[in-house]
Each structure stands twice: as structure tokens, then as C-alpha cells.
């Protein structure tokens, strides 16, 4: 068996892991406060819901489409979740179910309209973005829901025992694992990637396009719903502007993780590490007291770097293949 360096180097996540470890060590050496319990807690909280937002976009990238309404779905679910608890005093588990159903239905609509119309998901989700956001503002009249049950607030604040690990990160970690299993080990997940690679080839072997597209959008909506509710736990209130700032970060992490927007290539672990890298950079800039506006610049540079590195690796593989073919 040859599980060698080279096979590790081929993995998208391996390079990112090294970046995470190096940058973590580097920052910790300069500023030991980086590893303080409080800091780690803050880091993990921000990673928690960003992880789900990134996965919600990643599954749509996998089939070669885009979901612009990720944030709008998350926001609609967030205010519905907090709204039904405040206005109708509905119990927390039922409210969670309502939130999940809303997210799933929104995702289904995205997928169904995309399949039936044959229009690109970019445009369909641009339209639904406004519709979902409009419903959100219509319900809330731009006022937040403040009456959140204590159990929900506690869940948003609590740490596991005396460790710095927030409860908030448990669900995202489980979901990341499940998504890995889904993309790598289930037939539906593999068919999605095959579809993303080549719609024509996938259809020729009898993979149903409509099933693949609708399923991906349903999962995306479901994940956006979870992210929306986690943010409510975190903020301790349901404000209508939850989700407004999700769109670009939702693309950043998968792209840093080597995803190709044309579809067919995503990596769950690499996407998770992408989220972690973005979080570490944001955190480091705070610790070094750098103007927060720079976070955006760093993020931009990071994305460019990631894309260049991926391009370079593909180029390397191609050229090594050519040499291989010649002999």
C-alpha cells in the first residue's frame, strides 16, 4: 500500500490543515492570549454557525449552481423561530420543527422552480432572496423579537463543563460529519457530484437531474434553517437582519476549500477548514488590534491565494500526467 506523502498532498484539506496549524502556532507565539480560554470560545462560536452556512452553499456548488437565498432563508427561519415562541408561546422543540420545515420548504421551492423553469439557480434564488426577505420584513416590520425562552438563551451561552467549548458548536460538528458521509458515502451524494461534473454524462447513465437538483436545494434550505436558529441562540434575540451578511462568506469557505464553482468538486473537510481559516484571521486581526476593515482585505487576499494554489496544483498534475504518458 502506498498511503504516502503524495496521496496526502493530493487532498484539498491537507494544505489547509497545515495553514491552520502554522498560522495558529505563529499567532500564539506572538500573542499567547490567542490560546486563552475566552478567545478559543469566541473562535468556536463564530465557527459554529459559519460552518453550517458554508455547507449550505457548498452542496449547491457541488451541483454547479449557486444559492443566493441562503441568508434570506436563514433570516426568515430565525424570525419565525423566535416569533412563534414570543407571540404564540409555542414550546422550543415545536418551534425548532417549524423553523426546519420553513427552511426545507424554501429550499424545495428554489430547487423545484429551477428544475421546472430550466432557468439558472442564480436567477431563481436571486428572486426568492427578495421574496423570503420581503416576507421576513412584512412579518417583523423590521422589529426584532426579544422574548426568547431561557433554555434557548442558555444553549447559546453555555460551555461544556469547564472547557471553553460552546454548546453551539456541537450541532455544526455533527452536521459536518453527516455531510461528509453524505457527499462521500451515499449514492445520492455521489450522484450530485457526478451531476456537477457533467450534466450530460450523469443523465446518460440515468441519474435524474430533477431529483439531484431538488434534493440539493432542500438540504441547502434545511442547513440554512439550522444556521438561522443557531444565530438566534447566539444573539439571544430574533432580529430581521439575521442572514444579511451571509452570502459572501458562504462562498468564501468552500472556495478556499478548493471548490470549483462550475460544480463537481467540493470537499467537506476542506470547507470546514476554510471556515476555520477565515475565523482565525478575523480573530488574529482583533488580537493584533488591526482595524476591522482590514478583515475584508485579508479575506479577499486569502481567496485569491486559495484559487491560485488550486490552479497551480491542477497544472502540476496535468504536466506530470503528460510526462507519464510520454514514456
Amino acid at each position, binding site marked *: 500500500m502506498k498511503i504516502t506523502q503524495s496521496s496526502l498532498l493530493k487532498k484539498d484539506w491537507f494544505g489547509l490543515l497545515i495553514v491552520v496549524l502554522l498560522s495558529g502556532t505563529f499567532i500564539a507565539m506572538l500573542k499567547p492570549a490567542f490560546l486563552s480560554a475566552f478567545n478559543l470560545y469566541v473562535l468556536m462560536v463564530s465557527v459554529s454557525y459559519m460552518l453550517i452556512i458554508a455547507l449550505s452553499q457548498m452542496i449547491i456548488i457541488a451541483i454547479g449552481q449557486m444559492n443566493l437565498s441562503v441568508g434570506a432563508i436563514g433570516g426568515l427561519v430565525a424570525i419565525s423561530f423566535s416569533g412563534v415562541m414570543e407571540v404564540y408561546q409555542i414550546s422550543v422543540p415545536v418551534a425548532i420543527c417549524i423553523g426546519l420545515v420553513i427552511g426545507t420548504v424554501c429550499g424545495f421551492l428554489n430547487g423545484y422552480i429551477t428544475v421546472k423553469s430550466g432557468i439558472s439557480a442564480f436567477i431563481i434564488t436571486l428572486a426568492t432572496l427578495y421574496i423570503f426577505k420581503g416576507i421576513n420584513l412584512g412579518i417583523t416590520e423590521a422589529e426584532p423579537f426579544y422574548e426568547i425562552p431561557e433554555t434557548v438563551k442558555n444553549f447559546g451561552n453555555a460551555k461544556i463543563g469547564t472547557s471553553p467549548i460552546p454548546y453551539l458548536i456541537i450541532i455544526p460538528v455533527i452536521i459536518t460529519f453527516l455531510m461528509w458521509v453524505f457527499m462521500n458515502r451515499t449514492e445520492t451524494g455521489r450522484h450530485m*457530484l*457526478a451531476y456537477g461534473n457533467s450534466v450530460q454524462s450523469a443523465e446518460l447513465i440515468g441519474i435524474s437531474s430533477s431529483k439531484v437538483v431538488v434534493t440539493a436545494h432542500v438540504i441547502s434550505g434545511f442547513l440554512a434553517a439550522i444556521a438561522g436558529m443557531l444565530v438566534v441562540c447566539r444573539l439571544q434575540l430574533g432580529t430581521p437582519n439575521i442572514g444579511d451578511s451571509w452570502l459572501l462568506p458562504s462562498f468564501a469557505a468552500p472556495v478556499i476549500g478548493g471548490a470549483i464553482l462550475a460544480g463537481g468538486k467540493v470537499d467537506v473537510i476542506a470547507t470546514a477548514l476554510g471556515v476555520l481559516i477565515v475565523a482565525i484571521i478575523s480573530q488574529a486581526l482583533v488580537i493584533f488590534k488591526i482595524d476591522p476593515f482590514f478583515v475584508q482585505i485579508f479575506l479577499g487576499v486569502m481567496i485569491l491565494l486559495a484559487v491560485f494554489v488550486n490552479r497551480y496544483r491542477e497544472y502540476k498534475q496535468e504536466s506530470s500526467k503528460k510526462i507519464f504518458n510520454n514514456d
Partner: protein
Amino acid sequence: MTKFCLEIDSVDKAFPGVKALNKASFKLKKGSIHALLGENGAGKSTLIKIITGIHKQDGGKLLIDNVEKTLNTPNDATRFGISVVHQERNLIRRFSVGENLMLNNLPRTTLGLVDYQEIALQSKKWLEIMDLDIDPSTIVSELTVAKMQLCEIAKALSLRSQILLLDEPTSSLSPQESDNLFLLLKKIVRDEGVSIVFVSHKLEEVFNICDEVTVLRDGKNACTSESIKNLDRKKLVKLMIGRDEQIVKSKRKTDGTDKTILELKNVNTDLGHKNISFELKKAEIIGLYGLVGAGRTELAKCLIGLEKINSGEVIISGTAITIDSPRSALEKYKIGYISEDRKKEGLILIHNVIDNASITVWSQIKKILGFVTNDMISSRVNPYIEQLEVKTPSIYQLISNLSGGNQQKVSVAKWLAAGTDILIIDEPTVGIDIKTKAYLHKLIIELAEGGTSIILISSDMPEMISLADRILVMKDFKLNGIVKNDHKYDTVSANIMEYIHD
């Protein structure tokens, strides 16, 4: 009684303006290799698309194992045991070989998860049949083209296909790889009981492995399920090209004394052209003939600066030049290129007639600040649109609403307006009805009479013989020979075929 696993009985298929198939028939014997031959445009691809459920026939029957079937989708074809191995590879490049083979029926563990060990185990069997000694976990994109092709056949076998359609399977293989493929094809026909429909332009391959031959010509059968034993090379070539077609005679006489306007000397290109040398005289039409993949369009693209010329000389009116972009080809050297792919490269479909026709002249007529007014454009372009009799309700009609022939006229008008000296015309009449075709032929001759030098790329032999003064035959990115065209169809076509099938 002989068993036929596939029978095509008097199948018709019409597309707007073209009758692609006219009572085409053939019978595929079980366990045989059947060649399907014909020139470009003879209806082979249409027939293949009908057999694979992509198109539905207008009339006629399709029988599988003596039972009439209706194929509505490619899926139906797969279900009835028909698989195509396309020229373009239909594998998922980022997946492993094993997963590709098993993709529409992935084996699962008791937990319902994809079982990669089982995939490796099952796919190994099919790979062994194809003598492929590769690890099923190898990623497809790491394979050579030849191996990808073998994997695709293995995939078809794994689908339990009894009928394989191979569409020019050797077009991107080396001779050794082709020989290897043929050995394997013979083996699977013998051992697995499959039957093969083999589409190829290479006659030597047909004689090498096929049992029976069907030739299509203009959508009709030139011969039907003829045993290869009754045919020889010469008969086959005659069956493929020997059609009665009126040759438009040009009154124009070129005596070869005109001045040379373009000359290529030992040109080698980035795309793999080797030692291309020819001359183009003023007001001459030279034809580039060859099979698909001979490198003709590619040569045109090198000439207009889209691709790189590595060595050799390009001489225009006596001076050696380098053409670095289509813009300088047009503006400095007055070379225009009318693409074979009207829809993708030639025209901007969502723009109107006048915008498309004038796109080449904008930089010539723009005023000081770079503004171009509609009046300036129409005064420049309208004469050409009228001269070519473009049938359009107005010059502001969207191009996509015009017929193919009229779209092509706009393509031509665009370059006429730009005042080119050398016009490269690539497959001008593909998908165009006979009447407009004749008109375009007249137009090309008139252009030449007006002093434009033309390089005509066409796979349509009668078109070539009626228009060109000299015919350059290309094969595998090389110039195989030059045929002086005396417009006598029989001798000239035979000469051309000599160069192609040498």
C-alpha cells in the same frame, strides 16, 4: 434462421429544410461487428441518435431481438441493452474508474452507505475483460485517452449491454492503441456475445474487423448489411461518394498566372500542423478537404492569429509576417474568417442583423471620440445586406429569428463590409437547405470574380469540386496532396480519396 439483435427498418427523419434519413435500414446480426459508413452529412449521426433514443424517427421501425420497440430517452436505450461509446468521453473525470463503472448501481453496505471495497471488487471483473490492468481506485482524469475509452467500453459491458455503438473510436488513438482495441473488440464479441455497430472513416479498420457493412448516402442506403467479403476498397469508396449531383460550373478561368497573395512555407503550429506549404493566388478559390479532425479549421485559426504558428513563414503580398490576433489579421492583413459554427463563433445571436453585420467595421468608421452612429453603420453595411438578399423584415431583427441560410448571409456580409482580401470560409453550407446552398455557392464564386481570394473549408465533396480551383487534401494535420480541380466529379473525387485513404 439468423438472429438479428437490432433491426432498423425504413427509418425516416426530417429536420427543418433537410431530410436527414430517407428509408434507411440495416440489420445487425448477433455476435457480429457491423460497419456504418458514409460521408459527413450522410445521416450516420442521425441514425445513431435514433438508435440511442436521443431523436425519435418520423417513420419506420426499430426492432430489438425481433420485437418492435419505441425509444423515447437515452435511458430507454440503456434499458434495452444499447450503449454508445461516444467520441467525447462520457466518464465523470474526477471519480475513480470503479465508481464510474458502477455509478448507476452503486453497491451498498448494510448501513446503506456506498461500499467502495465492493465497487473495486465488482469493477475489477469488467476491467479484466478489457485487459485493463489498472487499480479501480485510480481517478479517471489520470488515465490516457485510450484507457478512458477502454473504461467506457467496460462500463457499457457492466450495464449488461448487448449492443455497443462505437462512434469513431480510434480518432484519438495511436495505431498500437487501435490494434489493441480491435483485439479486445473481437474478444468481447466472441466471449461476451455482444454485437457492435462500428462507425469509422478509416476503411482499413473496417476491413480489419467488420463482418458486414451498411453505407449511407444522402440519408439513403447505398448498400444494406452487405457482407464485407463481397466488397473491396474501391467498391466501398464508390458506394460512399458516388452520387449524382449537379456540379455548378464556374465560368471563371484561372490560368495560374495571377499574383500570389498568400504563401505558407513549412508552417508548423502549436496545434500540431506539420510542414504546411501552399500558395493562394489573387481571386483564387482553394479548397481544404479532409475528414473531421484533419486540422483544417485549426489551420484557419492559426492563420487568423487565434493559435500560434511555431515555425515556417507566412508571406502576404511578398512580405513575411506574423499574425498575432484576429484583430490584426483583419485590420492589417485583411484576412477574414467565417466560422463553421455560426451560432457559437460567427454571430451574436441576441443582437440584431445590423449590429452583427457591422461588428467588423466599427473600428474603421468610429469618429474622434469613438462614437458610432446608426446612420454611419447602415450606410456602410446596407449595400452588402441588400446585395446578399438577406431575408429579414428589418435590419433591426434579432439574428436568432432568421433562418440558417440568412444567418450565414449575414456572416458573409459582415466580412464583405470589412473589405477583406482573403476570406477563409469554413463549412458554409452545413445545415442549410439546397436552394440557399446553391445561392451561397454562386455568391462565393462572385466574390472570387470580384478579386477576393478564398480558402474554402468543406467536407462536402460536390461543393468542393464545384467551387474550388485547387483542392488541398489534409489528413492528421498534414497536407497530403494537392488536386488540380477540373470539375469532373468522378476523377477528382477519386483523386481526393486516394490522398485521404492512402
